[in-house]
């Protein structure tokens, strides 16, 4: 405190005599705010409240705008405005006045001003720029309270790019004589470190000074920064271990001033912070761990069980002990501690005990065995949170023998759970422990909410099968049986995804079941077609399955009947499927060749160029046929031919199903989607890829016993009696007694018996003898079945396939370019490897993906300017984060932290390692700016030696390449760490080659900035980089599309001005009340479109590419689908947008 303030404090008693209470604010209930609050509490309806607040707001608005309002009144007005905002009403007019108040008011008014600013404005709000000068002034103020306020506001919501402006002043405060200022300065720097680490890099030695500060408060504050830095790079701070240990020793020994005590426990926050740091330092490092054993032991001993805060310390201690290099003696104590937690009657402690058990059970399964009865009790706990945590624990100890019971428990929970997030999580877990019957339940309960990969992977597993053919046959047979019985029941209640799975399985495998007439199955399937809520997507799955089945005279007549009934369907896809069905049912030979049995595994060779049609085409051409024109061109000509077209839509264009009917065993979904790329024949190539179903990564939890067992799970669990150390004779007896009539040797009460039985089935195979059985759920292999499915290359998700296809078609072009480059410029023999060639590297890709997703989540929160939906759209190509930390993680977050400050808050793609040589690591990502797309290349010096011009050490450097718009000098070249900036001039969605070519040429220009060998490797890797960076050009629109805000009138003018147009029918979403709005909302969110207007059944939508070319879309609900008409000045834009619309709707 300043001396002035201290003097005031001594005068306190005399002042207080006026008002005996320190919190004299109570008086203000007579103020205007008090009136407002009382007014609101007297109201009865929300409507009245709204009226009152609106009145209040307009009065505030009037007063703040008046020049006669003094700052003091302004302060009072601001408090009222804050109150209105807290109630959820917007008072944006007051924002600027809040800043003014912070600027011009006296200390007290300033305080309210700053508070209002920090509550009203977000980090990215443009008005914040106006605050910078105020903050600068206050930081330099001699009034300590002002300095404190400035530091507080700076740590609360300061815009990133403004940090450099105030950084020197904040740094200066580190040496301030008053400890409270030093402490706040350290915390402010911590905040800066979190949002823009590269900007505070140069003050690392000052952090060290803060760590050694004589005031323990300042030291505590500096630990936040150290925790963060050690998390990112534990190796760099091993030398500090001894210091941290000493500090902790002193704290535990009660050497700190009494001020730091909390309920007579010395500085618990500091203790816990130190414990966390120590566990990070000691992880996988024996010698470092050895230094801390003593102090950990001491902490455990000192923290007597009497208060919540000591439990908190104990819990942290236990976590540390299990994280660092193990020491038997400590582990024993920690285990005892966990036991106390689990057995505690306090529910919070029980919860943490379970959590700790979950954490340690991988190392020590016996610990779970010791507490099995408690765990069983928790499993039936009335509190869902406890229940869920118990399931998490069980999930970790799942093995081949107890899986049945555990899955059953999980499903039970699933039935109770209402929360989407939990459902998705749990469905994922169950899916990992899956088998058919469980899957049936999962499908029916999880419904359409689950990720599409789950059914896909399920089918994949089914078709690829296990090692033995007999097993496969049985599994499939079982699936067929169970599905037939499901269909005979009440199929109307099954979710669409499940129906699709059922149809596929029946189509493929129902012939395995002897005695099951194809006609019976057909009828069952046909029933699905007539159900009201069956979606057209499901219908085409059903019809496809029927085409596979139709055999014999019965079927022919059924097919006839169907074709009559559905032949007139408005859905073109359905119509086509029905026709196929009819033809194939009549011609058995054709069917056998088109749809061979059991061929799901054989890779289909797809001629993506459709060369087999060449003969046909040339014949037709020579016979005088017109050459092929893409649909939009045809439309255009059609439009030109008619002088006057009053109808906004011509005949709805049949979707070009170019070759879908031949490529069987595809999800019909994919086909109708790819048909959107009219005239682009290359997009078929991915189908070959997806038919060879990949199974790598799907864990085969289910051996022979697994799925056979599930018919009678209880018996199974009882029969498998693996001697577990804790299975006493009495318990085994208890387990047996329910099945057989064996008398129980020891008379146990009934509920107890049940529990014991459950325990023996749950914990079977956990003991030390059978520890081999422990499934590998270690941290290194978070093999989530559903996650894996999304991973690199193994996905059957539409997006992945699309990118694959583009990749394959493009790679030839790329290679060519690359070779040219090699010929002309390359003379060095720098060892370069593309990610695809180096398994180790590609693994790194996989791991980095995980982190980036997490990163994106973060960005989603940090940057409101970026529509979150965009990020979500992106994340379809990235993998979900691994469930647990993995060792590579810090590295990536480290890289992303090196993004230049002005880019750090923008959403960026995953950082992809491009190549590494002996001394350089290259990685890249693309960053989406408001008006540009930047390609950022990270150059990291991985060797010990310095490389000239790059700078030594481990600091990664960034090179930014603006990709769009044309030729513009990169706007962000001023940031720190930018070595060179390349203008790039190219444009074109379809001209991939141009894109690559230009970029490679651009890299030559970098020569002036960077060492040549580095450049060389960069140029060499442009290919893989661009391919991966842009997630392929097909996704370009996702990165480049921006909403175009126009009025309806402007829209009309633009519409008439554009020549290129395309028409198409899109699927309409039916989940909302208003299908049109729902559909447009989805498109808007996913593709950053701007919905200009919705009138009745028609809607108009506009977007553009960055600041460039616009594209307009006119939508109309027509016969259950969405007829869209797109116009743009650029030929390829409508097609591209259309394609993405289809994808967006499908993914939805």
């Amino acid at each position, binding site marked *: *405190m300043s001396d002035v*303030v201290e003097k*005031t*404090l001594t005068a*306190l008693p005399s002042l207080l005599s006026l008002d005996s*209470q*320190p*919190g*004299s*604010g*109570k008086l203000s*209930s007579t103020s205007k*705010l008090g009136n407002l*609050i009382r007014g609101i509490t007297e109201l009865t309806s929300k409507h009245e409240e709204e009226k009152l607040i609106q009145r209040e707001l307009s009065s505030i608005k009037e007063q703040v705008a008046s020049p006669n309002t*003094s700052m*003091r*009144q302004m302060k009072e007005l601001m408090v009222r405005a*804050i109150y209105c905002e*807290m109630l*959820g009403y917007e008072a944006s007019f007051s924002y600027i006045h809040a800043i003014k108040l912070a600027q011009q008011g*006296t*200390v*007290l008014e300033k305080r309210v001003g700053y*508070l209002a600013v920090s*509550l009203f404005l*977000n*980090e*990215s709000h443009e008005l914040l720029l106006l605050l910078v000068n105020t903050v600068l002034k206050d930081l330099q103020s001699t009034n300590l309270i002002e300095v*404190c306020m400035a530091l*507080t506001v700076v*740590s609360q*919501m300061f815009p990133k790019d403004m940090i450099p402006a105030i950084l020197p002043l904040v740094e200066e405060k580190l040496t301030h004589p008053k400890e*409270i200022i030093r*402490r*706040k300065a350290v*915390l*402010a720097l*911590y905040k800066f470190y979190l949002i823009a680490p590269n900007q505070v890099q140069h003050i690392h030695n000052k952090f060290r000074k803060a760590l050694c500060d004589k005031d323990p408060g300042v030291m505590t504050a500096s630990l936040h920064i150290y925790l963060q830095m050690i998390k990112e790079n534990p190796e760099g701070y091993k030398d500090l271990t001894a210091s941290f240990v000493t500090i902790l020793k002193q704290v535990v020994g009660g050497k700190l001033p009494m*001020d730091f005590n*909390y309920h007579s426990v010395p500085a*618990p*926050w500091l203790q816990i912070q130190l414990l966390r740091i120590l566990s990070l330092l000691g992880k996988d490092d024996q010698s470092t761990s050895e230094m801390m054993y003593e102090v950990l032991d001491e902490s455990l001993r000192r923290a007597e069980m009497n208060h*919540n*805060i000591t439990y*908190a310390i104990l*819990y*942290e201690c236990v976590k540390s002990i299990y994280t660092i290099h193990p020491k038997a003696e400590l582990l024993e104590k920690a285990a005892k501690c966990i036991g106390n937690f689990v057995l505690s009657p306090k*529910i*919070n402690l029980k*919860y943490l005990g379970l959590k700790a058990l979950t954490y340690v059970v991988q190392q020590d399964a016996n610990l779970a065995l010791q507490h099995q009865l408690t765990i069983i009790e928790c499993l039936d706990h*009335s*509190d869902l*949170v*406890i229940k869920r945590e118990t399931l998490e624990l069980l999930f970790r100890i799942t093995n081949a023998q107890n899986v049945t019971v555990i899955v059953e428990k999980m499903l039970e929970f699933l039935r109770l759970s209402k929360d989407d*997030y939990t459902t998705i999580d749990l469905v994922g877990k169950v899916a990992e422990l899956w088998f058919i019957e469980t899957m049936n339940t999962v499908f029916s309960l999880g419904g359409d909410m689950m990720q599409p990969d789950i059914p896909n992977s399920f089918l994949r597993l089914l078709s690829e099968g296990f090692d033995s053919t007999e097993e496969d046959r049985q599994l499939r047979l079982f699936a067929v049986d169970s599905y037939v019985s499901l269909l005979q029941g009440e199929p109307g209640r099954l979710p669409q995804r499940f129906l699709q799975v059922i149809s596929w399985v029946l189509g493929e495998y129902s012939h395995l079941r002897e005695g099951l007439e194809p006609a019976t199955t057909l009828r069952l399937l046909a029933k699905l077609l007539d159900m009201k809520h069956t979606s057209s997507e499901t219908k085409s799955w059903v019809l496809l399955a029927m085409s596979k089945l139709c055999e014999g005279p019965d079927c022919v007549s059924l097919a006839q009947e169907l074709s009559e009934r559905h032949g007139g369907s408005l859905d073109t896809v359905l119509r086509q499927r029905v026709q196929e069905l009819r033809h194939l049912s009549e011609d058995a030979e054709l069917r056998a060749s088109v749809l061979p049995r059991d061929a799901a595994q054989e890779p289909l060779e797809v001629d993506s160029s459709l060369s087999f049609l060449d003969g046909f085409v040339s014949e037709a051409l020579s016979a005088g046929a017109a050459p092929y024109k893409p649909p939009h061109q045809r439309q255009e000509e059609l439009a030109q031919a008619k002088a006057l077209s009053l109808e906004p839509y011509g005949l709805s264009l049949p979707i070009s199903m170019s070759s879908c009917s031949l490529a069987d065993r595809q999800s019909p979904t994919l086909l109708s989607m790819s048909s959107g790329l009219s005239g682009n024949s290359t997009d078929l190539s991915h189908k070959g890829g997806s038919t060879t179903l990949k199974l790598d990564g799907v864990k085969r939890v289910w051996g022979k016993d697994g799925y056979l067992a599930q018919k009678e799970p209880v018996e199974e669990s009882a029969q498998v009696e693996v001697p577990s150390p804790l299975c006493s004779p009495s318990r085994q007896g208890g387990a047996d007694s329910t099945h057989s009539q064996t008398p129980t040797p020891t008379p146990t009460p009934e509920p107890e018996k049940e529990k014991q039985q459950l325990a023996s089935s749950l914990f079977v195979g956990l003991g030390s003898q059978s520890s081999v059985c422990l499934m590998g759920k270690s941290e290194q292999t978070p093999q989530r079945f559903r996650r894996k499915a999304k991973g690199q290359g193994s996905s059957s998700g539409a997006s992945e396939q699309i990118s694959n296809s583009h990749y394959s078609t493009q790679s030839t072009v790329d290679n060519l370019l690359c070779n040219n480059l090699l010929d002309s410029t390359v003379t060095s023999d720098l060892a370069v490897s593309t990610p695809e060639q180096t398994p180790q590297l590609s693994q790194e890709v996989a791991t980095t993906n995980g982190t980036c997703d997490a990163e994106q*989540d973060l960005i989603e*929160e*940090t*940057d*409101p300017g970026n529509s979150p939906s965009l990020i979500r759209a992106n994340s379809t190509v990235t993998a979900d984060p691994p469930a647990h930390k993995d060792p590579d993680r810090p590295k990536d977050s480290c890289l992303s932290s090196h993004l230049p400050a002005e880019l750090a808050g923008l959403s960026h793609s995953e950082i992809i390692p491009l190549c590494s040589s002996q001394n350089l690591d290259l990685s890249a990502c693309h960053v989406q700016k408001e008006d540009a797309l930047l390609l950022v290349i990270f150059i990291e010096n991985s060797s010990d030696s310095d490389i000239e011009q790059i700078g030594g050490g481990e600091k990664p450097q960034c090179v930014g390449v603006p990709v769009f718009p044309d030729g513009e000098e990169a706007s962000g070249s001023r940031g720190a760490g930018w070595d060179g900036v390349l203008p790039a001039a190219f444009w074109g969605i379809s001209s991939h080659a141009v894109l690559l070519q230009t970029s490679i040429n651009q890299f030559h220009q970098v020569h002036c900035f960077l060492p040549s060998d580095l450049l060389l490797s960069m140029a060499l890797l442009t290919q893989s980089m661009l391919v991966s960076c842009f997630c392929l050009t097909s996704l370009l629109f996702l990165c480049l599309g921006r909403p175009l805000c126009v009025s309806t009138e402007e829209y009309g003018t633009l519409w008439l001005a554009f020549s290129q147009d395309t028409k198409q029918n899109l699927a309409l979403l039916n989940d909302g009340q208003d299908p049109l709005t729902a559909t447009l909302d989805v498109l808007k969110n996913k593709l950053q479109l701007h919905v200009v207007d919705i009138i009745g059944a028609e809607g108009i939508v506009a977007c553009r590419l960055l600041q460039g070319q616009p594209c307009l879309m006119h939508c109309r609900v027509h016969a259950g689908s969405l007829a869209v008409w797109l116009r743009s000045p650029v030929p390829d834009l409508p097609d591209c947008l259309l394609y993405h619309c289809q994808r967006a709707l499908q993914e939805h």
Partner: protein
Amino acid sequence: MMRFLLLFSRQGRLRLQKWFTPTPEREKKKIIRDMTTMVLARKPRSCNFLHWRDLKIVYKRYASLYFCLALEDQDNELLALEILHRYVELLDKYFGNVCELDIIFNFEKAYFILDEFLMGGEIQETSKQIVNRSIEASDMLQEDDNSDWYEVELFG
């Protein structure tokens, strides 16, 4: 690190909100809604910890007011409960036997106290005495010119 702190009444009315990481308005509204429904649905004497997305939620009820704090994965839940408790202690010391009405009518004071206690999502000062001293020091300046303020009230 803490992500946000919410105070709301038994009826689900928001009394105080503090966001330690930048959050878009829409997201804030959604979080507030989720938190109130989730926390208010909890039965008494059940566990004070919840999961929400990837965050840990620690809540505690003091009289008619719920205190709800969101933590990141690595943070210590029990410690968070103590943070809430210490905040309540601070409010109590400042207002003297604090009740919900104190926080409703003087919410800006509650914010000031919070700012002295937490900073940037981390605990800044754990000592009750020191926090109160700095709050009172700032308040002193306010008391000085209280009389003028009343005049303004009368004539303004």
